[in-house]
């Protein structure tokens, strides 16, 4: 039996002088529990644990890029397309993922396996192109690496 979300959240909140500071960690936990996104009931759970309104919690979540307000695939593939990766072929890497997965950036494959996103700089500029897979960074990715990566991910 996993710990109830409220218990987990209150333990985190105790680290801060004001419990509201725990809203981001709480949203992250709720997102993990709901399969990678934040459905409306997640805001009610977080709100109840921290004595905040669900609307407040949703208002915070919509500000941050890593909180997802729509369902995402089992694997999240994010390609940096900012300038440093862009100068070194990020667009070709992104296009290769589009071809391999059959979706556009922002879309999820019909089988629910993959969500593909283009993201702003994730801080690996010296090792382009940077691709985050479920928040783990792969560095120096080229378009030629993409079919192999997708093959691996399908079997993990």
């Amino acid at each position: 039996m996993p710990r109830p979300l409220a218990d987990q959240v209150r333990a985190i909140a105790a680290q801060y002088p004001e419990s509201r500071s725990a809203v981001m960690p709480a949203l992250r936990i709720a997102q993990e529990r709901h399969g990678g996104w934040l459905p409306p009931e997640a805001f009610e759970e977080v709100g109840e644990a921290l004595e905040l309104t669900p609307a407040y919690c949703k208002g915070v979540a919509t500000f941050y890029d890593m909180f997802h307000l729509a369902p995402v695939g089992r694997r999240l593939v994010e390609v940096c397309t900012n300038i440093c990766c862009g100068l070194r072929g990020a667009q070709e890497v992104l296009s290769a993922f589009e071809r391999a997965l059959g979706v556009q950036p922002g879309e999820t494959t019909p089988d629910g396996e993959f969500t593909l996103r283009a993201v702003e700089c994730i801080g690996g500029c010296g090792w382009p192109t940077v691709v985050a897979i479920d928040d783990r960074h792969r560095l120096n990715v080229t378009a030629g690496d993409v079919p192999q990566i997708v093959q691996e991910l399908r079997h993990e």
Partner: protein
Amino acid sequence: MSDVIVLAGADERDLTQLGEYRALGGYAQLERVRGMAPADVIGELNAANLRGRGGAFFATGRKMQFIPGAEQNPNPHYVCVNADESEPGTFKDREIMNRVPHRLIEGSLIAAHAIDSQHVFIYIRGEYLDAFETLRAALDEARKAELFDGVTIVLHRGAGAYICGEESGLLESLEGHRGQARSRPPYPAISGLYASPTLINNVETIATIPKVLELGGAEYAKIGAPPDSTGTRLFCVSGNVVRGGNYELPMGITIREVIYDLAGGIPDGRALKAVIPGGSSMPILTAGQIDVPLEHDALRALDTFLGAAAVIVVDDRACMVQLGLRVAQFYMHESCGKCTPCREGTRWMVQLLEAIEAGEATHSQLDLLLDVCDRILGKCLCPLGDAAAMPVASYVVKFRDEFRAHIDQGGCPFGGESSLDGLFAPVDQHTHHPVVEEGVPA
């Protein structure tokens, strides 16, 4: 003396391990400092002329001196370590956290002692999962070894917002709000986290402190390009170079040396076109300006900044209009929306740059672009708007012929051959921040 300060020893030893760090004299300065008066610690930092490594280059010791004493303000005092490294081109704090996490922890505890604080928060960007885990493990080790002496250190993960690297956005976010910039004054030293006196410093600044104390401020001040640009920086080298990466060097090395001696030059036989010296928000330099030393005063003389010491190298395949468009798209995406000039101005910049790139703009719209930049600059609560306006205006000024060619030829003179051609921006993602109706099945 070795030139390496912040990453000292990391090539030879696994300094993520407490034992290895201690074998190298780690935490000895903390122990020594705890027997010193806070004012004497700050005195060493002032003697070193240590300046903020996050980009603002503000004197670290002076910032600490702005924090009122307990008799003036009895509220708890806070130290916030800004580990929300998000400026495109910058990836040094990540390396510091991954390779010398204990040096950052030691520096944080010394900073806490210097401002008489018992509470440290480290705000790390959400995307740095590896650094988060490394730092968390190091914190656990240091805590078990009873190095905290009553101080608490909370590691707080962000969730993807560039603005939270701006100090007031960081404080808002840490308090559990949307990360929107605050009006200043009051400055964080007077009224920061939970309206209490707060010291906010960048990871690299904090991680430099133990070595400053080990060497002594006066000795540290001899490194680099004194009197203002003392010490080393982790230069983040990216873009069109053979060997990108972080290079820790004394300030004052030239851009030419960085590109050709360290990073192996420009690949594929291409020619250098331009260099962005401090991160994507900084005004650009042309290929003819690369003999400038990477230090504060010399770059100011060229109307640009050292910023976070990110050196982005651009070769002759890049279309400057496309570069400006992609930079503007980033800042439009990251604008917190609070100040109208930034929220609306970055959008106008994007629209104008799209029209220029498509060959649908007039010459007067090129002037309008500069006018929009001017109406953002210095007119907002935080520098995010400036971060869009400064670089784009510099591209127009320094590469005006290329911008004009788009207008005169009715399209991009690169004819689809630019290295940045068709680069997709997340702002185009139609599902970004989607509205999910109640009852829609998961």
